[in-house]
């Protein structure tokens, strides 16, 4: 349980960075930290004490493998989630560069044309 909570602390640091920091790059870094922590959370959930990697070798004992292999499903989910994170990062980077070119600043508090 301590492991889960420590992992959530990283998530919260990421969210804090996204909300409170005004620098665009800092916001991207916050997003990246958030992605890391969620991916790690899923893998932590799938871990088994004394586990072995879920990859079968030709001379491996099948019963032992089924008994001690760690959970493969969260690993599959995390692979998808890493890709989604990379996609979001690319889109965010494109937005950040474009905003810089339009406003000539990375400061989110000066990028404020919308009101109401």
């Amino acid at each position, binding site marked *: 349980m301590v492991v889960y909570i420590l992992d959530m602390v990283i998530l919260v640091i990421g969210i804090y960075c996204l909300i409170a920091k005004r620098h665009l790059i800092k916001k991207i870094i916050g997003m990246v930290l958030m992605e890391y922590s969620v991916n790690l959370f899923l893998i932590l959930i799938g871990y088994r004490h004394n586990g072995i*990697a879920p*990859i079968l070798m*030709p001379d491996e004992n099948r019963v032992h493998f089924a008994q001690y292999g760690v959970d493969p499903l969260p690993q599959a989910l995390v*692979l998808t989630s890493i*890709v989604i994170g990379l996609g979001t990062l690319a889109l965010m980077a*494109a937005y950040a*560069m*474009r905003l810089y*070119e*339009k406003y000539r600043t990375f400061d989110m508090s000066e990028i404020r044309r919308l009101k109401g």
Partner: protein
Amino acid sequence: MKQKDIEQIIHDDHTGMSLIVKTVARMMIAVIILFAFYIILYGHLTPGGGFAGGVILAIAYTLMMLAFSRKMALHKFSDFWASFWDNIGMLAFIILGFLGLNSGYFLYNFIWHGKPFHLVSAGIIPLANIAIGVKVGACLYAIFIGLSIYGRLIIKEEE
């Protein structure tokens, strides 16, 4: 944006990094690409797979662009072809899904599964890995071109 400006930017940047970097990169790139193909092709037997291999491919081309120059990298593999292969990879994966429909289900593993622990086994899994590898490698290279060239171009135009 104007074609002329892009060409100007590419033309301005033709020297790349120093000789040492270039020599090391020249040796490394082939090895990296080989490793990427290994990761993609053996994805169903060992750790790795289409996505990891695709990113390695993209990194190899990115290294080429950083070490030599944009001009040379684009000469080897232009952004048009990057985006073309991106689409082809995606199309191949979707069509693989539609072919499964023929045997009853969308994305059905319709090919004979083969002998375990051999390269030709596991039905559509290696094929899907190749499709994803091509797609991911091409599209990440394309986005790197986009972020590094078009970005500069916009500044130039606005000023």
